[in-house]
């Protein structure tokens, strides 16, 4: 009786496998984007997808945006011009220094262009980043030809943010020396960072008020401001910081320099020179709106 029971169980098991066997998968039922490729699409494929594995979305599906904001789609011609500038000042710089394979490994994966800024009750958002994956460029329709080739304007508006976020991508892969966070120890304010002005932040050894948020943001602020805002700006920050603040800032910069050298084989000063050169050359870039 026991045996019969066993066989019955085996039979059922067999039936179960037989009756529930998987069907073969056919082609996907989700259709591809059927719209015709434009010259811009082809350019993006050649300049972002192939070399860097970055997808630039210049068409906006509003339902994929943050519903707290009312934004509109970007003008494709301006999106193209901005994509050229971002390639020139950000991706192209990293590419020239570390190679395109480096960007394929470590980069944002998506850019989204939005026509207008994201308006809060009192502030305007120029660009956002989420999850180290996606960068949203806001206010693209407001860009004028002379904004696009104005390196300082572009750095202030978008490029500094990109280096800030890119620093996060890198320091999430390889961690920064924990002693970095000890330099300012109890001076980090978390979300209350807005209560501090620039002068106070500098005097405490922060490169900007936002650097006073947390060691992670401090590191990204320091790196991005050091690279993108130029030596004069850095000297001014040190001057404003006073002796104690400047000492902290220099100590932080030393750790950052060592980190980029040892972890990523990037000489931050050489990289900055390259960036400076590209900033100076931006005026000659054909943005061709």
């Amino acid at each position, binding site marked *: 009786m026991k045996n019969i029971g066993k066989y019955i169980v085996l039979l059922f098991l067999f039936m179960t496998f037989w009756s529930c066997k998987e069907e073969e998968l056919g082609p996907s039922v989700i259709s591809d984007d059927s719209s015709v490729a434009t010259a811009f699409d082809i350019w993006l494929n050649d300049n972002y997808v192939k070399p860097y594995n970055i997808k630039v979305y210049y068409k906006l599906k509003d339902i994929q945006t943050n519903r707290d904001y*009312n934004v*509109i789609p970007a003008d494709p011609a301006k999106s193209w011009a901005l994509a050229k500038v971002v390639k020139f000042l950000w991706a192209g710089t990293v590419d020239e220094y570390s190679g395109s394979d480096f960007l394929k490994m470590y980069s944002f994966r998506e850019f989204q262009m939005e026509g207008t800024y994201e308006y809060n009750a009192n502030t305007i958002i120029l660009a956002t980043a989420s999850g180290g994956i996606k960068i949203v460029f806001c206010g693209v*329709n407001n860009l004028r030809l002379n904004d696009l080739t104005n390196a300082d304007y572009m750095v202030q508006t978008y490029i500094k943010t990109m280096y800030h976020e890119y620093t996060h991508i890198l320091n999430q892969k390889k961690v920064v020396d924990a002693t970095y966070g000890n330099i300012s120890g109890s001076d980090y304010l978390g979300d209350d960072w807005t209560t501090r002005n620039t002068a106070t932040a500098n005097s405490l050894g922060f490169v900007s008020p936002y650097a006073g948020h947390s060691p992670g943001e401090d590191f990204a602020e320091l790196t991005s401001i050091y690279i993108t805002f130029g030596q004069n700006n850095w000297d001014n920050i040190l001057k404003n910081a006073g002796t104690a603040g400047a000492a902290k800032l220099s100590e932080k910069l030393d750790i950052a320099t060592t980190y980029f050298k040892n972890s990523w084989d990037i000489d931050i000063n050489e990289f900055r020179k390259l960036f400076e050169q590209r900033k100076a050359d931006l005026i000659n870039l054909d943005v061709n709106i």
Partner: protein
Amino acid sequence: MKLIKYLFLFIPIIVITACVKDEETLFNDPPAIRMQKTIDEYKTLLTGSANGWIMDYYPEVSYAAGGFSMYYKFSADGNVDIACEIATNVPARQTVASTWDIIPYQGPVITFDTYNPVLHYFSEVSSTSDRDGRGGDYEFVVMKATQDTIYLKGLKNENKIVMWKAGSDPMDYLKQVSNTYNKANAYKNFNFELGGNIIGKVVMSSAITNDLLNRKFTASYTKNDKDTTETIAFIYTVEGIRLNTDLVVNGVSMRHFAYDDTERIFTCSDPGIKARFICTDKQVLKYEDFLGDYVMYYAVSNTATSSTRTLDVSLVAEKENISYCLEGLLATGSPGKILLQYSGGNLQLLGQIMYTAPETGYNFWLLPYSFPVAGSNYITQSTTVGMTSIDVDSSDGKVKFRMVNNGAWGTTYSVAGFLLRNYNGSTSLGNVNGKDGQPFYFFPIFEMK
């Protein structure tokens, strides 16, 4: 042991139930394929209309701005031409191309996914104080479609929006709708007549928000012995207006009205209904009547007793039916635009920033300037204080009017004219001379040439 046997008996039941293969399916295809089929059908429908589509477009939450007629011509390559009956970021009825798509969301959603200066005019935000701009949607859920009508719902604001197949000349349709607007928007006050009796009043909205003259009216009447007031949004048509919802009074439902500009009467055109809105305002000049070349008489002192200086100026259409550009006051080569608004047969010239320098952010102001008050003169950086037209006359076929204080500066101050001046915020950077080498324009009088 017996218990175990019974347990074994249960197993096949469970297994069979779990693996039953012949489920009756409600639909033949999986959901993704059904959605794709629907999307393809709608794409075929939209691109299939040879003359495109007309949309009754209602921006702003709860239809608050009323409706605007839009034209769409969808192409299979993903492009779409869009025009609007009114001036947007481009002049009225000018067609601009961008892209469109239908994407799955809560059902198929028609989206306009690259910038179109016509459609996205209704959605763009430009200040932190008005975070939804004109509150227009540019993504629409398809609720229902027939071969010639598509029923949509704005994805964010949920306004119901209808699109129908355009006739042979859609741009002419928009032009005729504009003509109705041009004629009817001059009048605000009407008596509400139902079944031959005047039962109340209808007041057309004169609010212009974000350059949109709100297309709605407030009807007040007595219903079942109760005083009733309701506001209804509408859209202009070739004949008159079509209400967004029925106006229902004593069991009578009204939806369509024809406008007669000679009599200044809206007559309900729904079958068997006898209702009219009869204008109680006197006849006034229309927006387009003011367009043309003028001699402007003016003074350069706020104590002058007559306007003896002259300049050749022009009123040029800026936003059709809404505003004009007053050309000829600024020095040759000076950047900036002076705008006047049309409202109910009169013109408003208000304080305004004529130009903002892109490099410095400095503002070039047309600044309201007071009559002397106890021996002193005052100016104000206000965009509501200014001058309004009076004594508008066109009896000899040429428009004449003069501008006087609009009363918005309170009781102490009264606008005598304007001063041209540059500002860095509220700090003056000095006066700027106009066309005749003076920064002042007082007591302007306009006479059409």
